[in-house]
């Protein structure tokens, strides 16, 4: 029985302005909300706040935890066009800000995104095109994350975007410069296909500045042009012999690999640079069969900008590092390269931490090699703007107004790294979303005004609260051993298994998605104060529950006699709604409702595809802490029996779950008994941690006990 | 000292060690048996006979009627009166009624709670408590009732009664000071003699008597006849302020069934003998074994 699918619309946030931070929530407010989840739009969890596109991390992780994968990807893609790419390569500021770090370790958000995005693929998630797409045509130059994100947003707003890509494949840097062992092409293609499905036209092999120019685009009926060409050329140094054919600009080197054209290299490769692109080049050179691959950089180990993990994996694969040396000359011998002459580096950064290397010219050393890859940075290529009338600024960059995303020509816009500091894929996506909004404003109103203010961020979790959260180990991702990795171009790390992903998703504390008090209904009865295992509710005049501290266990919601507490992450009456829906799907005959909740319920159970017990409607809950006595009695009005399957003591994600659940079942049975009904119609089993077989067996046993006097 | 109103009062006034007995009216109108036993066994052995007032809240014939019947047979009753069942109107009226029927001794009690009896759903009254009942009796004796006339002055009686007024106390309660304070209040309110809850521990009783040496009212130590060892154990576990020592329980347990009554008489006699030096009398609660009273008196060496 598949339960709960489609009941929740996490993103339809049609709500009137309710600023949770400064005013009380009333039952009238809640009645006016399509879904209390909208309340969370007013306050971001740190993961969401830190995310450049502000993806609703908490919601999509929660949906993963419930096995609702397609809905999860929809939530991700609502904000992030490149869900698959980011699942692989994102620098995940979300995880760096994850409050779970105060308990044990951050939730593996990127891995979960990868799991769910690739599991669902491009076809499994929703493509929602507006009814009409007849607004203006907009040209986008460059099909990287920025350009494609802009195109997607414009398509969603009803425009007709056309993306011009100079290469023969769309995707930009992820396509041309990220090695396949980090980002398989089919994964990238999932994102591109999904974006294109929204009515985005992509013209490949079309380099602007040749047969089409910016002026010609405007003349050809494009109401606006967005420049999203990124950093398309590698920085080089004016050194002797720099133009030797075995001296590669890094983007050329990686692009050759990306398009399956083996770059010619020798056996002794020297990569100049200490950043992530340099790591990509070095690790690719290893895979190309080089006997020795060394990376030389100005920085010492601590200063080098590459991610720690990337450096470690490179080391494991045999790359060695030479620090604090700068290139002086490519030394050739006959037609071939003999060495890279280098000089010592005294310091890289000045007192103001600006990049300002100081060299020691007395320290000259030749590093033997036969191939050199320069990975010392990338730069924009403005060649295509010649004769377009676009102005450059005093430093030779494109004149650009960051407030409006406009260049010197009002209908030519820019986004991504052509105008921003170098960054990550997700930052480029954010820039693309913003430029689409700018174009829309420009074309609809003629003026562009952004409100860049973010909702407030939920604060930190105090140690006393963190100490009460049950600890669960972060799911480790399998990484192939180095000797296997270097043998080919297949991916280095493996996706989470479904079970691991569900377990990991349930580590998410749902920050800010917890309890909220409707002040007009609160009787200040202290029940929430008395039952909260985390000590969060406070009663002054009425109960106040600090959503920044609430752990979303739902105990208070279930216990509140006034029904005054709602969940910010679930619709009001969620359990009863889902129960009704599930029972309706049962065939005629004896009907049983089984509430199954807990941290370790098996994966198949959560997606509802498992074999079930006949006549049983399974309703999965994050924890049985969320099941009230009134819910159980309500279920009995729809079915012949209720089985509550909770986790054994200490096995639920929330403290006190087993005890609370048992007390509530006892109470429900007492009420039934005193009213002359069969108390055995409500059964409890604490077997949810035993997996599918255990759960089904528990349900069968419980049903057999229902008829006993 | 005022003129004694009853034989009990005059005997106590004389300093003589006084024994009183007790009968419980029947549940029903057949009062002959209890009257016969009073006449046969108590009349010549005791100074007065308590008549219980719906004892342990088990409904039965009233104390006033049976007290009156005793009067008519020449036996002096101690009319027990509890505040559980009647408000101040009924209590005062019953006092006047009892007086005109010849009753002169009154024992003022709060009374066991209705929850302890056979009509637990009854509404407990407790308009007055034992202290205010004693005060009310004293007030009647002064020719007044508790009410006020339209000018705010106490109503005057057309003829005032005079009673010998008693109260009770639990000498062996775990916390004895609140009992003593309340006893002081009872005496202040008018109590002239004291009958106690059952006592089986002479040492503890003597200690209690020393603590109330400042009170001048005569004390009749209460003795409840033990019928079996089981009854003794039950009293220990369930009757507040009663502690039957193990040695006594053992004596009852060791006694053959046919000897139990004899042993019980011996025990009662010994208890009275051991305590008579520190009190002014004994109140024997025989629970139907009224015929034993003469032998107990004998066994006590009185």
């Amino acid at each position, binding site marked *: 029985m598949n339960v709960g699918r489609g009941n929740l619309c996490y993103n339809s946030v049609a709500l009137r302005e309710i600023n949770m931070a400064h005013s009380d929530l009333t039952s009238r407010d809640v009645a006016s909300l399509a879904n209390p989840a909208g309340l969370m739009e007013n306050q971001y969890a740190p993961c969401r706040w830190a995310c450049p596109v502000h993806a609703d991390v908490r919601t999509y992780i929660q949906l993963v935890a419930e096995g609702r994968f397609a809905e999860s990807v929809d939530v991700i893609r609502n904000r992030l066009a490149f869900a698959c790419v980011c699942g692989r390569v994102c620098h995940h500021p979300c995880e760096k800000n994850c409050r779970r770090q105060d308990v044990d370790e951050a939730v593996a958000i990127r891995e979960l995104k990868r799991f769910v995005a690739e599991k669902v693929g491009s076809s499994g998630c929703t493509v929602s095109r507006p009814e009409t797409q007849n607004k203006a045509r907009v040209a986008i130059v460059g099909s990287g994350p920025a350009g494609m994100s802009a195109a997607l947003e414009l398509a969603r707003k009803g425009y007709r975007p056309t993306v011009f890509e100079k290469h023969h494949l769309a995707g930009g840097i992820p396509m041309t410069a990220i090695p396949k062992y980090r980002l398989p092409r089919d994964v990238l293609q999932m994102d591109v296909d999904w974006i294109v499905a929204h009515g985005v036209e992509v013209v490949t092999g079309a380099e602007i500045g040749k047969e089409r120019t910016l002026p010609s685009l405007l003349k050809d009926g494009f109401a606006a042009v967005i420049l999203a060409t990124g950093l398309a050329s590698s920085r080089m140094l004016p050194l002797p012999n720099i133009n030797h054919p075995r001296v590669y600009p890094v983007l050329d080197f990686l692009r050759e690999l990306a398009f399956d054209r083996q770059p010619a290299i020798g056996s002794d490769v020297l990569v100049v640079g200490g950043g992530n692109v340099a790591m990509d080049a070095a690790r690719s050179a290893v895979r190309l069969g080089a006997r020795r691959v060394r990376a030389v950089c100005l920085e010492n180990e601590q200063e080098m900008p590459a991610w720690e993990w990337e450096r470690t994996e490179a080391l494991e694969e045999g790359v060695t590092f030479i620090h604090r040396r700068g290139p002086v000359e490519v030394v050739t011998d006959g037609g071939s390269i003999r060495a890279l002459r280098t000089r010592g580096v005294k310091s890289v950064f000045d007192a103001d931490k600006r990049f300002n290397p100081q060299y020691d010219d007395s320290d000259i050393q030749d590093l033997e090699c036969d191939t050199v890859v320069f990975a010392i940075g990338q730069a924009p290529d403005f060649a295509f703007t010649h004769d377009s009338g676009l102005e450059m600024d005093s430093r030779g960059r494109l004149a650009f107004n960051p407030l409006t995303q406009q260049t010197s020509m009002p209908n030519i816009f820019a986004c991504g790294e052509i105008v921003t500091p170098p960054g990550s894929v997700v930052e480029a996506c954010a820039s693309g979303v913003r430029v689409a909004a700018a174009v829309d404003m420009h074309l609809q109103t003629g003026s562009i005004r952004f409100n860049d203010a973010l909702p407030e961020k939920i604060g930190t979790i105090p140690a006393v609260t963190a100490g009460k959260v049950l600890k669960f180990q972060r799911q480790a991702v399998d990484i192939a051993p180095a000797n296997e990795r270097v043998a080919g171009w297949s991916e280095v790390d493996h996706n989470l298994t479904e079970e691991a992903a569900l377990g990991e998703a349930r580590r998410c504390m749902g920050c800010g998605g917890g309890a909220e008090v409707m002040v*007009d*209904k609160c*009787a*200040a*009865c*202290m*029940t929430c104060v*008395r039952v909260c295992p985390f000590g969060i509710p406070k009663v002054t005049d009425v109960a106040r529950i600090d959503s920044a501290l609430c752990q979303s266990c739902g105990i208070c919601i279930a216990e*509140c*006699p*006034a*029904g*005054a507490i709602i969940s910010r992450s679930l619709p009001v009456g969620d359990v009863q709604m889902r129960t009704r829906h599930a029972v309706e799907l049962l065939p005629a005959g004896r009907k049983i409702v089984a509430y199954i909740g807990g941290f370790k319920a098996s994966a198949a159970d959560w997606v509802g595809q498992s074999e079930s017990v006949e006549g049983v409607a399974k309703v999965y809950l994050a924890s049985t802490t969320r099941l*009230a*006595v*009134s819910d159980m*009695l*309500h279920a*009995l*009005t729809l079915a012949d029996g209720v089985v509550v399957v909770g986790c054994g003591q200490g096995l639920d994600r929330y403290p006190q779950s087993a005890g609370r659940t048992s007390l509530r079942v006892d109470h429900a049975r007492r*009420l*039934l008994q*005193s*009213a*002359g*009904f069969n108390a055995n119609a409500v059964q409890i089993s604490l077997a949810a941690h035993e997996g599918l077989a255990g759960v089904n067996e528990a349900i069968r046993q419980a049903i057999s006990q229902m008829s006993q006097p | 000292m005022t003129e004694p109103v009853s034989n009990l009062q005059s005997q106590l006034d004389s300093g003589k060690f006084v024994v009183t007995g007790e009968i419980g009216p029947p549940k029903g109108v057949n009062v002959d048996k209890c009257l016969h036993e009073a006449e046969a066994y108590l009349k010549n052995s005791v100074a007065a006979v308590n008549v219980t007032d719906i004892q342990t809240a088990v409904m039965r014939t009233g104390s006033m009627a049976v007290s009156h019947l005793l009067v008519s047979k020449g036996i002096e009753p101690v009319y027990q009166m509890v505040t*559980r069942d009647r408000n*101040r109107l009924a209590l005062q009226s019953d006092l006047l009624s009892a007086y005109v029927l010849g009753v002169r001794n009154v024992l003022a009690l*709060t009374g*066991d*709670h209705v*929850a*302890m009896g056979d009509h637990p759903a009854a509404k*407990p009254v*407790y*308009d*007055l*408590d*034992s*202290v*205010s009942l004693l*005060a*009310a009796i004293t007030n009647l004796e002064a020719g007044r009732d*508790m009410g006020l006339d339209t000018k705010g002055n106490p109503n005057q009686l057309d003829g005032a009664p005079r009673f010998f007024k008693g109260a*009770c106390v*639990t000498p062996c*309660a*775990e*916390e004895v000071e*609140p*009992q003593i*304070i*309340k006893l*002081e*209040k009872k005496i*202040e*309110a008018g109590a002239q003699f004291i009958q106690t*809850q059952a006592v089986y521990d002479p040492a503890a009783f003597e200690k209690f008597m020393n603590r109330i040496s400042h009170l001048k009212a005569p004390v009749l130590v209460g003795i409840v006849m033990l019928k079996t060892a089981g009854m003794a154990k039950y009293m220990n576990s369930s009757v*507040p*302020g009663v502690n039957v020592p193990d040695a006594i329980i053992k004596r009852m347990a060791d006694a053959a069934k046919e000897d139990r009554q004899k042993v019980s008489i011996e025990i009662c006699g010994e208890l009275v003998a051991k305590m008579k030096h520190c009190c002014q009398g004994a109140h024997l609660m025989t629970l139907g074994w009224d015929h034993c009273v003469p032998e107990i008196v004998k066994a006590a060496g009185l």
Partner: protein
Amino acid sequence: MIVAELKPFDEIMAMLAGSRKVLVLGCGSCVTVCLSGGQKQAEELASLIRLRSQQTGMDITVDVDCITRQCDKEFFDNFKFDPRGYDAVVSLACGVGVGFMSREMPDLRILPGLNTTFYGANTAPGEWKEFCHGCGDCVLAWTGGICPIARCSKSLINGTCGGTNGGKCEVKPEMDCAWLLIYQRLRELGKLDEYRKIRPARDWRKDRGSGVRRLSRQELSQIDEEPRQ
């Protein structure tokens, strides 16, 4: 706070005999605080009524509502379900709410779903105890804050009776002897003299002795005054 508890279900069903459309109406004050008559308990009772209705083919429809207080008529504006549309309203308020609703809406059948039990306070998780009897003549000043009217099973005012048993009342073994508590408290406070004083018989007119009691705050009486021109 007023404490109440759910009536026996069969009694509620007997009251509802013949009713086809029933509103279970919670009260958001005292009875919510003691977990007897709030929104949730109303939902629970509604489910039980529906269950009985299903099992016996009675065909009762049940709705649930809850207002802030049933003892103030201004809150009647907040009904989500109009009680006039029902054959019977099972009120989960205390007797005050039931009585007041009946007075204000005399055409309706307002039925008590609870038995109103006492004025009490929460003494342990899930436990409420009686602290006051509403006798109208408070004696707490000389009883160390422990009410003998509410907490002595005989409402004695002059001290312990003979039924005090190891600190407990002989009426119920779980019930403390209030007078022993009073004695101990007064002793700790050095106020045993308060115990020693004879307390005269009480004037029960302030309790229920002289009928319905009322509070009249004349300073808030209706003003019958035309605005001056």
